[in-house]
């Protein structure tokens, strides 16, 4: 194992994830088109999820036999389980991510319906234009 390469690549991965995070955060906050915001939001969710799984990753110990990180026996002995624990990655972040992906999907479905409705009502999906209309409406209401 070339430790320098692995370190470099790992840090590169983490920094890439944060760059994605920053770019998409900008996309969600600063872009005026709702569809663009939606796309950026989905990528942001995915980035957070990848980061979560990365948290649970483990470095393979040198000398470990190449085996799938799962129980390959339906009637395991304590030794097999011990071996399995030694080579498997952290399952809890994966369970979190599974939940988070479904939640993100649900929210995205809702946002899609809302974007469609905004388009039906305002004939535009530009938040600046909608904000202008809203200011005028509130002004009329208040006077």
């Amino acid at each position, binding site marked *: 194992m070339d430790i320098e390469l692995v370190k470099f690549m*790992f840090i590169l991965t983490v920094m890439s994830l944060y760059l994605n995070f*920053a770019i998409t955060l*900008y996309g969600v906050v600063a872009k005026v088109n709702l569809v663009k915001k939606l796309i950026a939001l989905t990528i942001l969710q995915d980035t957070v999820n990848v980061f979560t799984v990365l948290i649970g990753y483990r470095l393979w110990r040198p000398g470990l036999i190449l085996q799938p990180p799962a129980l390959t026996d339906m009637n395991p002995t304590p030794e097999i389980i011990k071996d399995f624990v030694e080579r*498997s990655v952290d*399952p*809890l972040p994966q369970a979190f991510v599974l939940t988070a992906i479904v939640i993100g999907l649900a929210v995205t479905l809702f946002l899609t*319906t809302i974007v469609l409705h905004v388009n*039906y009502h305002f004939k535009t999906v530009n938040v600046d234009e909608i904000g202008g209309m809203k200011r005028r409406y509130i002004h009329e209401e208040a006077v």
Partner: protein
Amino acid sequence: MLRDIIFVTLLIIIALALSYLTYLGGLGDLPPQDIRLIARSYLNLTYNQGVNWLWAASPEAVTAIVWDYRGLDTLFETVVFYGAILAALTVFRGVSKLPDRIVSVGLSVVVKRTMAIVTLAILTVAASTALHGHLTPGGGFQGGAIASVAPLLLIVVFGKQLFVEKKVSYNKLLTLRNASLGLLSLSTVALLIYGLATNEIGYIFQNQAKALSTLSYPSHMLDVPLGGTLFFLNVFEFLAVTSGFTLVFTLLLSSEEVILKEFEGEEYGY
């Protein structure tokens, strides 16, 4: 141009700062060789018959965590998904009752025939993913997500009137969806109800027998481990997700004229 450069610089600075903080805050420059102790506990317990008051009877640790150890999270994750579909039904209410006028011919005969066979393959593979969720990677939601690609492709390839011809109605889908959700929630509280009826200890989301409770779902069926509730929950989740997705797609793909007609006029009520 200058604005862009400032902006990109800012983003890179944010990313670098966060990376540095994360690096200091625990991730380090390499993933650790050991996992957290709680993960070791999960991996140790999930299919360990030696500790059978704390096992989940499933060799798949992720599915065991998703549906058993942290089953409540997953139930409410299903509720979030249900809420999204409820929201779609709420804002599209009225649309499903109107006749839909789009008639599209779909794609060419080659694509139609191929897609019919591929649909069969997709549905079979999805069902297998769901039914083996407690044995191999996969599970109810994964199966549902795979299966729901099939109706979407069918709508694209055959046109939306296919569902009308095959009598796949809004009410049928809603019934299937809510019935499977009801069964899902019922199977999570079944042992509690049984325990209350027979005056024994039972818990919400109980799967295998626990230290204080002897009630248990079967841990094996035929010749494979069953994972108790995991099997039932995966099956019901599969049905619920598939029908829910199909419901939302049919709503989202309603033609624009129909929707706009439904939105005419002001709504009364405050």
